[in-house]
């Protein structure tokens, strides 16, 4: 039975287990604001969805194409700031201004990623990483110093127009306030689902296979006749565009951006950690990584503080509990050293090993 490699009956698309799982998760996420009407849970879920998108696009870049770029946080920030600035400077915004913000941020990020890739893909990978690191830091400094445009350290605070406005209320449904925030939540859900599906389609297409080939052995791919430069540009542009989309959704959810919350290198390190935990090269791993990270980020400080409250006299333990980011850093280093494949990657390689074992055992 195991040797029957080919399919004798094609299953309809709708019964494919992955599609069912996917649809089930979306339905569950859609019902969450009605099951748990607290703001905190909705906030958690929205952030998980947004960061899933950003981390998945970074996984496309790092796991599928093999390019390490530290500029992903910058594209995230570009998306966030374009929405913020347009909605802040225009006196009476309406919904097509959001569309304008989307177009502008897409244009800027695609332009910048094209520029960066033209300059830097011809050098070795490490130079590319260092260049993007320098570029991201530059964007941060620009965001802080260009106060006339970006409002400097204070950041930009704005309101969403039309039905997205948080005060706009439609009444109640299943005992939950249906207001603008819920509308934004559903917008985030639909956009993330759609863009994640686009990402899946991108990687499972012939284009995605060429990208995997480039990651495995670039020389061999060139020998086969593919222009790797072109494919790498496709990959970089697509993932930067998706990161900006993530930034737009983030700004719409928080209604406040400042340079430290969107351009800081800490965001890039967080994205790296999420990709590593979830598993590089597996798109679904980004869901696991983002969920794990954001839930821990919300609960760990509280947990540490309650543990520290048990020994209130000891100053050392108090300060160590304050700096919970230290434990993140240590976890990061441990994950890189000992679990470089991440959760999903390890699971997949175990399954693959079992399949190979079963195949060899039952071949005769």
């Amino acid at each position: 039975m195991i040797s029957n490699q080919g399919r004798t009956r094609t299953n309809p698309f709708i019964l494919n287990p992955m599609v069912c799982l996917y649809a089930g998760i979306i339905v569950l996420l859609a019902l969450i604001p009605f099951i748990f009407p607290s703001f905190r849970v909705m906030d958690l879920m929205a952030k998980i969805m947004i960061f899933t998108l950003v981390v998945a696009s970074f996984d496309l870049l790092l796991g599928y194409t093999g390019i390490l770029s530290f500029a992903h946080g910058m594209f995230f920030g570009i998306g966030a700031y374009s929405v913020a600035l347009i909605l802040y400077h225009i006196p009476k915004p309406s919904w097509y201004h959001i569309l304008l913000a989307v177009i502008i941020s897409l244009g800027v990020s695609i332009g910048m990623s094209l520029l960066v890739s033209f300059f830097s893909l011809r050098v070795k990978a490490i130079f590319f990483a260092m260049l993007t690191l320098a570029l991201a830091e530059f964007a941060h400094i620009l965001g802080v110093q260009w106060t006339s445009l970006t409002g400097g350290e204070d950041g930009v605070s704005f309101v969403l127009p039309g039905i997205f406005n948080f005060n706009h209320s439609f009444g109640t449904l299943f005992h939950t306030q249906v207001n603008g925030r819920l509308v934004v939540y559903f917008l985030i859900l639909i956009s993330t689902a759609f863009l994640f599906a686009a990402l899946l389609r991108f990687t499972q297409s012939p284009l995605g296979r060429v990208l995997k080939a480039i990651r495995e052995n670039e020389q061999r791919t060139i020998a086969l006749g593919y222009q790797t430069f072109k494919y790498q540009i496709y990959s970089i542009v697509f993932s930067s565009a998706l990161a900006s989309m993530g930034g737009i959704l983030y700004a719409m959810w928080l209604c406040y951006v400042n340079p430290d919350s969107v351009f800081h290198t800490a965001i890039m390190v967080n994205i790296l950690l999420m990709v590593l935990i979830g598993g590089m090269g597996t798109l679904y791993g980004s869901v696991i990584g983002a969920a794990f990270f954001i839930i821990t980020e919300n609960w760990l400080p509280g947990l540490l503080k309650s543990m520290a409250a048990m020994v209130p006299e000891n100053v050392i333990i108090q300060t160590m509990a304050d700096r919970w980011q230290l434990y993140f850093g240590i976890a990061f280093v441990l994950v890189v050293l000992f679990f470089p494949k991440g959760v999903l990657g390890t699971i997949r390689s175990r399954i693959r090993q079992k399949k190979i074992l079963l195949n060899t055992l039952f071949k005769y």
Partner: protein
Amino acid sequence: MTSQAIDLKTNRFKTNRVKTGINWLMGIGLFMLPLIWIDPITYLTLTVAGLSLGMLIFLIASGLTLIFGLMDVLNLAHAAFFTFGAYTGYSVLNLIASFGWIETASLGGSAFFLMVALGTAGCVGAILGIITERLVIQRVYGDHLMQLLVTVGVSFVMVEILKIIWGVNDEVVPVPLAFQDSFIIYGVFVEYFRVVAILLGVCVFAGLQFVLKKTKIGIIVRAGVENREIVETTGYNINRIFTLVFAAGAALAAVGGTMMAVFNQAVNPGMGDQFLIFALIVVIIGGMGSVTGSFIGAIIVGLSFNYIAYLVPKMALGVNFMIMAIILLIRPKGLFGKE
């Protein structure tokens, strides 16, 4: 297999002297360009300030380029070594100040205390480098991607430990009194400390070149980079030598940190990231693995930063980026790069 010609009589590379001379002249001419907009006195002040900034950046960049060029290890944790060195120097100077010795106005006394602070910072940097190398770097030799990720993580962890020990705020560094003076030559303000920074940079450069080219350990290190296995067969413990190189690089970064702390008269936990960007730009301009390259690159970056900071303040960092982009376009290996 080299693309350059070799002089058969002396077995050395033939250098096109005319071309090199023209390149140098063009470079120096480019740096005289701001004289059009700035009066000579300010220009000289800015030049001295730029040279001293460049020397400080050289201290960090030289460690980075050594570690990459000689060990093929990407070390982004350099920023953390730098910050640790700065804070160590700050603590040592605080300690000296609490004894009241900072108030000595004698140049010799101040220089002595500065040396004490630098020495302590160097030792701390070396210890940190050894610990990092043993624990973390040895597991990821050869895999550039993992090295980048791991060193970013280590840098993060070290900055957090720093925040636990010293707190998150900016701190003011007590500067030895004599260094707060300056002297005037032909109307140009020259602070004593700037001259010390330039002297220190030049000494470190000369020392590095001497160690690398004329001593036995330098030759072993360079040979180990070319071909690790053969050096192992000759009986030297290459692991220990690479640990030594890493520790030396970290010590240089720590010394640079202390100098920057006294230069700015303040320390804050985020200073490492800012200067890592400068160091990366310098290493890319000068070429990975070349100490001469990072020296020249640091001078270029320091000078251009100061001139543009005077003329068009917001574009100061941008100009450095543009130089880096131009160098990447016309000569991706860097000015003096070998790979």
